């Protein structure tokens, strides 16, 4: 199994979720994160002080998938999360050695 970690633009979440469901993925975990990269941030002004905010809001998705689904899922995410502008984000694929569904104790592929 693989853990697919994707960093995307927040407003793309719904699209990506739909795309994943359409390729048969029915589970994921998301985190509100902040990203630093090529995309440049904005400036905030508070009276005398100006702050350049380089860390921009992003959504981090974690999706555990069976070996064979990996590519399909990666493609689905890439397609759905893409705007073509700087800051679209990344996808990382990480190996999972073991998975468990807490409720049933099922393991590995069955756990997803």
């Amino acid at each position: 199994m693989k853990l697919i970690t994707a960093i995307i633009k927040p407003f793309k979440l719904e699209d990506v979720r739909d795309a994943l469901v359409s390729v048969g993925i029915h589970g994921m975990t998301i985190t509100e994160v902040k990203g630093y990269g090529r995309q440049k941030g904005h400036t905030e002004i508070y009276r005398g002080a100006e702050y350049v905010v380089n860390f921009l809001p992003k959504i981090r998705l974690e999706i555990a998938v069976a070996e064979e689904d990996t590519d399909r899922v990666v493609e689905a995410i890439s397609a759905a999360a893409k705007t073509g502008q700087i800051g679209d984000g990344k996808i990382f694929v990480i190996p999972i050695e073991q998975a468990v569904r807490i409720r049933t104790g099922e393991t590995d592929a069955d756990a997803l």
Partner: protein
Amino acid sequence: MRVATFARVNVTRSLAAAAAFTVTAAATAVAQSAVQSASKIDPADTAWMIVATALVLMMSIPGLALFYSGMVRKKNVLATMAQTFAATALCSVLWMAIGYTLAFTGAGPILGTLNRVLMRGIGMDTISPLAPTIPEALFLIYQMTFAVITVALVAGSVADRMRFSAFLWFSALWLLIVYVPIAHWVWGGGFLQRAGVLDFAGGTVVHLNAGIAGLVGAYLLGARRGYGADNFAPYDLSLAVIGTGLLWVGWFGFNGGSALGANSRAVFAITATHLAASMGALTWMALEWWVRGKPSVLGMISGAVAGLGTITPASGFVLPWHGLVIGLAAGVVCFYACTWLKIACGYDDSLDVFGVHGIGGATGTILVGVFATRSIGGVSGLLEGHPSQVLIQLYGVVVTLAWSAIASFILFKAVSAFTPLRVDKQSEMEGLDVTQHGEALQ
């Protein structure tokens, strides 16, 4: 002596009534001069009206700023507050400079005079015939708070997408071209007042007027991106609940202060107001419970504000129990305006200014014609055998609606001619706080 004063107050407010029967400017003029001669500053009335002014100001800042910003998404909270806040500052100055004199001096049917430009001629002892027991400066600033909140109300319809600069331009123009004339027609001795239209504290001038302008704005700006699809859940509804509390309390100054003195009429206005707000809240809560299965806090506060807006024109003309009925009507009518009418017509009135204030203001203004009670406001309505009052009220509603709709439409177009009304796609997605004001809630 109180009774006397009190009588006088009645006269003033119900010039309308008087005129309703003998429709002659003369009558009015006479009545007014009569007032003038008898005028004397009353310290108790002054004390109450100073406080009423503070209460109505509190309705805008922080009241309305909270009520509105509590219903938007996190990225637009500060921008929403900024609209109310800037409108307050801008319109206050314009009102003192030119708005007041055009609205509340002279007896012209359409507009007032320029006698009081920049408060010229208003001294410590000056009294307006329209408020015979308090300093004119107090009457001016009291009315200022009404002008301010009316403009601020409009912002709710275009929230989440209107450019800040465009909003400021619109506010200034709208105040002078839409609010000021209507205020004169209904309260300043204009043709609607002479026609006998009754509007105690602003069913037409404030609520219907703002609701219509908002609706026009919502149509012209178009729906927010993702409207109907994305989750627009309010970021922090608790702000809206706090705001509603302050609006409700402030409304004592809004409706009670419209009696222009510390008298029984103010007391009855406040009593009817409080009961209408309570019934409005209970009604909306009940309906939502029944229709949706759960009574939301947003529903309760919406019902309360609906009740408050709807009783506004009636407050000083009806009996307390009429307040219960009017609050009930407000709850039902506004509930369906926000949950059905809006969907049916497909406009995106972000914070339901039309659904709550527009519909509520119109409903209330018409109901004055039904419930007006001579012993309270000196005028009788349908229930007291004077059905024609309903038609007079309808006339007031139609005129206000028409002028507000047409003029607002023209003004939005005019502003859009030299600066875009709406932020660009990117800014709308990032949020107005950062893009319009360079700030954000952390």
